[in-house]
């Protein structure tokens, strides 16, 4: 009887320890978005690849973005940015985060530019409380426009029709 009680207590302790460990991870994690090296088509997959990072390693947003621009840690992910892209400035005004990158970003066009901007916007939406992310290049244009503003409503990463139909 004593042995069973001891085993139950040990099990409860282990479970509580495991749950503490999980909550600590959730509290500190940040997600960087890149592209999949090989496309994935599962119902829960978008074109963007999520990479979980330890948020406690970064003291502020700028430091996190610097690390983000350095590229993915996983070999199954690829960076959508051209080499040499730097963050020139960042500024948050009300609900909008303004990000200015070096002109290397304006070398991108079409779908590649869209993916790169969506990756930045999706990452920043997770890092800050901003609702809109406005991305621009230092002097150049992005796809013929001065800036691209993205938010959760104009970035459709998953076809949510399945949920609407009850799956």
């Amino acid at each position, binding site marked *: 009887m004593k042995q069973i009680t001891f085993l139950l207590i040990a099990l409860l302790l282990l479970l509580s320890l495991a749950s503490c460990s999980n909550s600590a991870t959730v509290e500190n994690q940040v997600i960087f978005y890149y592209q999949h090296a090989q*496309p994935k088509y*599962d119902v829960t997959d*978008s074109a963007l690849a999520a990479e979980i990072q330890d948020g406690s390693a970064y003291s502020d947003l700028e430091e996190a973005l610097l690390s983000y621009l350095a590229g993915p840690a996983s070999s199954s992910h690829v960076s959508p940015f051209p080499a040499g892209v730097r963050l020139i400035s960042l500024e948050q005004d009300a609900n909008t985060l303004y990000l200015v990158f070096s002109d290397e970003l304006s070398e991108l066009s079409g779908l590649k530019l869209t993916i790169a901007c969506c990756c930045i916007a999706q990452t920043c939406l997770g890092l800050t409380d901003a609702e809109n992310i406005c991305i621009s290049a230092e002097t150049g244009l992005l796809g013929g426009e001065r800036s691209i503003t993205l938010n959760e409503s104009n970035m459709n990463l998953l076809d949510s029709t399945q949920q609407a139909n009850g799956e």
Partner: protein
Amino acid sequence: MTYVVITFVVLLFLNVYCSQVSMQLFYNNKESSMLEKAQMTANEIGNLDVLNNAAIEDVIDRIGSLTFTRLVVTDANGRIIFDSDRSTGYALFPQIVTALESNDVFTWHYRNGVMRSVAATPIFQSDHISGCVYMMEYDTEQGQLMDSLQRNIFTVSLLLEIGLLLFAYAFSHRYSRRLRKIMSSMQIIQEGDYTHKVDLPGRDELSVLGAEFNDLTERLNTSENKRRQFVSDASHELKTPLATIKLLSDSILQNEMDTETTREFVTDIGNEADRLTRMAHKLLSLTKNEGNPSEMEAEIIYMAPTIDRVVKMLSGLAESNQITIQADLTNDCPVLISEDDLYQIAFNLVENGIKYNISGGMLRISLHRSQDMAALRVSDTGMGIPPDAVGHVFERFYRVDKARSRQSGGSGLGLAIVRSIVERNNGEISLQSTVGKGTVFTVEFPCFDIVEEEDEI
């Protein structure tokens, strides 16, 4: 149990295989139909001068027969131009990204009776990708059909497996019960009850095995009875001369007797000892005859010379018994036999004819050929054999007149030995006897004519 496991694995394999094949069939069908629809839509949109929501809606209305859950048309940047779900902005579904990289793509997911199929294809305008068509179908009808098909296959497999299990159980139960019967019978036989029989009706292999087992047991029982009889007879026959020797030697030791009487007693002891020796030799001979015939020893020989030799050998015994021997031997009787065997047959029959004849009697020995058979007849004028004893004279230690047989030094093994040798050499032996007149023994062998090769000139 092994068969059940094998069939279970086979059924499981068939189940999985059927499910996979039906899934593949649905997949192929869906893939071709959805890609065809997406490409047709993309072609129609590619013919437009300007890509905008209203123009694309017109195209979709014009096609009319399109069935989809969601249709999205984007420009080359992934910006939504048309969406049946009316969302705006950018669409970065993985299928759209692949299509904008100039690939046709079809993906298919099936879960819980729901099939979610997506096809995406690029829109070309003047050889440039100007956008893509994304088409999604959320199909519960076909999903349920697939689900029902899989369920049916599973149910049939399950029923088959249950049926198979029941059959295997019944079969193995019956089989093992019958097998146990044989094993318990073997145990009984092992304990010495050779009369036991196993009862296994039917026509299957076990019934055949049971019948063979019974046959074997029967033969074992016969053999055992013969062995017991032989041991009993042999010990009885050996005991008699030994008892006589003991009695005579005790008499010599215990009584004072003259030299003549002592000599007579010692002579009797010697005679009994000789009889024992002859009996031992004959038993050995009989044991040897029961073995497999050695075909290497047999050769084609003419019978007459060997029989003539026997007659000459026993003429002294005949004379002392006042028996006249009349021999009529035909030379043309070649048979396949070893000379020793033929000598033993003739010797035993002629010796019998002399021993059991009446004083002043006649012994006729004839050898004749009739077509392909050589027949040796030994006919005496003795007291004959009673009809009830005729069937037993070839048995070991059987004597018609026991007192006379022992007196004449007979062992009761001579005719048993003759029959054994005759049968070993593919011959036949028979007898006709009339009480008070005599007995005729006939031995027949197939003739083997010797073809002499003529020298070529």
